[in-house]
């Protein structure tokens, strides 16, 4: 694998404003009834006045050990050279195994194309033009960082080396490439 694209979501800096959600829709022509990415503001958790929200990015986790790829009978779901979990629409037979297998529930059937769809880090659009994914480029508070984790000099590598981070449902062994910097209750410590 030449590159290992990862995304870091800093929950301290995220304000749940949905700029990412909208930018992704526009960039990738995502139909209204479905979504590739959203940030769910969950909570407030805790007891008054010691409360906090959780800013939960919900999108494809780009698993290194991807269940959707394992169950795909035709190879339509595959991991590309860049580590991005991708979809070959021509090979898809619409069996929905991948939708069922995803432990993060982020795969959906695109009502226009009738093919499974999900976040691909804007692989076919912005990434192909050498730009960062739409969500990353528009984020008002710079809560997202995208790059090649194989490059130790990259910003993502630096972040992952220096900040406490976690992956969702890591216990399943899926090895997600979306990393999260947990918010520290009471003030921002990025």
């Amino acid at each position: 694998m030449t590159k290992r694209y990862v995304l870091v979501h800093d929950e301290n800096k995220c304000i749940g404003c949905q700029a990412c959600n909208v930018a992704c829709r526009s960039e990738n022509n995502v139909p209204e009834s479905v979504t590739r990415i959203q940030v769910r503001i969950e909570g407030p958790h805790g007891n008054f006045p010691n409360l906090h929200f959780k800013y939960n990015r919900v999108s494809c986790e780009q698993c290194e050990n991807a269940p959707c790829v394992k169950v795909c009978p035709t190879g339509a779901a595959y991991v590309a050279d860049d580590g991005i979990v991708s979809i070959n629409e021509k090979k898809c037979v619409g069996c929905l195994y991948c939708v069922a297998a995803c432990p993060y529930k982020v795969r959906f059937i695109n009502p226009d194309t009738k093919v499974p769809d999900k976040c691909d880090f804007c692989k076919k659009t912005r990434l192909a033009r050498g730009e960062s994914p739409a969500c990353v480029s528009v984020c008002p508070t710079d809560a997202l960082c995208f790059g090649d984790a194989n490059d130790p000099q990259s910003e993502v590598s630096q972040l992952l080396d220096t900040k406490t981070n976690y992956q969702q449902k890591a216990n399943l062994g899926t090895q997600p490439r979306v990393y999260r910097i947990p918010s520290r209750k009471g003030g921002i410590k990025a």
Partner: protein
Amino acid sequence: MKLDRRTFIKGAGASTAGCMLASLPGSIAALGAGPVSGSAKHVASICEMCSTRCPISARVVNGQNVSILGNDKAKSYGGAVCARGGAGHSLLYDKQRIVKPLKRVGERGEGKWQEIDWQEAYETIAKNLNRIKQQHGAESVAFSSKSGSLSNHFFHLAKAFGSPNTFTHATTCPGGYVVAAKAMFGSKAKRDLGNSKYIINFGHNLYEGINMTETRGLMKAQSDKGAKLVVFEPRFSIVADKADEWYAIKPGTDIAVALSICHVLIRDNLYDREFVEQYVEGFDDFAKEVEAYTPQWAEAICDVPAEDIRRITHELAAAAPHAVVDFGHRATFTTEEFELRRALFAANVLIGNIERKGGLYFGKKAKNYNKFAGEMAAPVLAKPGVKNLPKIEAKRIDMVDEQYALIWSSGGIYQSILTAALEAQPYQLRAWVMSRTNPMQTMTDRAKVVEALKAMEFVVACDVYISESAAYADIILPESTYLERDEEIADKSGKNPAYYVRQQVVDTIGDTKPSWLIWQELGHQLGLSQYFPWENMQTLQLFQVDKDAALLSKIKQDGWVSFGKPLMLREPSMVKAFTAQYPNAKPVDADGTYASQLSFKTPSGKIELSSSKVEKMAPGRGVIKYREVTMKKADELFFIQGKVAVHTNSATHNVPMLANLMSNNGVWIHPVTAGHLKITSGDKVRIYNDTGSEEGHALVTPGIRPDTVFAYMGFGSKNKELSRATGRGVHCGNLLPHVISPVTGMNLHTTGVKIAKL
């Protein structure tokens, strides 16, 4: 501009539009949309999905979509764009958007419309307005508009017509702090959040009511510089969540904490004595007044522990001058806004953060900046003036009381239209011309706004939708959206001069016109041609840059051009960098700053902490003072509102992409209060008071004080034309009383309500 013509969204309006849409005359759904076409290359322009007006970069993609991103050239915006900005194209080709002039054919507000052509629209308006002018004087026509880029053209028409009655939305939102700043500093102040080390915030919800540079500045200060943020707010908002300390202050009592901070600063000798001696007038009177405002006194009023107020004040002073008490934005919490916003400014003055990094500063426009630089560091834009405009003898309707003198030229008291229309006070208004303004949502006492509109002989609305207010018009003029029009160069100077410009990205859809053209053409029809000498926007732009084509081209190409280095007059490092850049710069003071050059446009030339001018305007208000206000009855709950990141006040709730993200507002209610009323989350509830009654659903959450309920504003529209917004959620304006606050003229967004389970 390279044009790329393709078919846009096949069959828009035909296949998927239901019966309701097909019956909305003048809409894209009814008329069918042409292909979307425009620049396939990125065009630098300016957003208009809210009033911040961020620089953007937009292009048409494959004739199907418009990609809207931030403009990287504008550094403080970081190339970012919020959800509203990114969704601009969703408004552009929304099937419910109005793209043909309409005239009312049923009763006013009944919702029966007929498409007409522009000439008929202009003729009808001119006939009616000229008749009213002839019979009752031009002053009986009110003109109101969202403030900003094109309101100049609209208010120019009002002046040419001869009416002094022009209004912006100031008194429904920011007017309070503008008036307070004018009284104290003589001009508006800005805040340098990005460089601040300690920030005290009174419910200025910058993480939901997004103002891109300020939101980014606050996050930068917190995340990169480790600034401490203290928030006083009755609701657990996003900014409260991101704070180091959050105090669920009792609604309407912010002023007690603010005054108490001033008390501690003075009593514990934490204030900047040198700064006060040099720059401040009226300190002694102020100090005498705040003697009584101890933290213990404040604690009893606001539920904030006295010891915390004392400690926070000491922390603030320790971080000074790179610290700030945020003076807020929506200044409609209580009727004592003038005192609250002045008290917040006073705390800043006491810590001497004026023109210091992380504190308050004043905008550096080209003219002033060049004086310091000793050369033409930045071009000065010319202002086209029209000579011999008619002299208007009539007084404005809000000029009944001298105490409001500071708001007359800052947007006026918008809600005074209601009193004039319904009670002929001070005289009868008979017509109302509106441009991109939605008083039905932003004013208060919706029923009264309806009455006022019905009482008018003639109403005109210029908008992109049949907004809740436009629904009561006689004539609706469809404005081109911001993606379809060119505008004048705008000044966006901060610490150094900066200009940017709005440019057309997409060819006009339907039969719409940019509003500058609408008002010019209407001016011709009204017989006022001599006051509209410019040919088009290009001639105006060239006039602005004094025919410097290279400069105009640069501004258009980059979309954002800033000049020189950031300058704060009392910040040594900035002054040093500035003088290094400009060899002919004004000589600096002994301490390496321009501190001695700092002056204020007040009667004394100093910061007026206490003001004899204000005392004369509004007896008893010269010195900042606490007055008890009654916000609700004993058996009621406080009702407060706020902004959400995906919508703009009263304007975007029908935009498809944004309506899809959020189309309803829950009523936040504390679990204990909800328990007493046997309400659980999701229950249908009635929320009511003497002003009105609304139905919505409960959102039971610990993120609100037990004595308070909250709802995001702008929802619950009531006219059938905004079908995605109508009947969804609670309409806040229907529960808020009609009030004109002292001195500022602000309306009021805090009141009492009762809640019942349905």
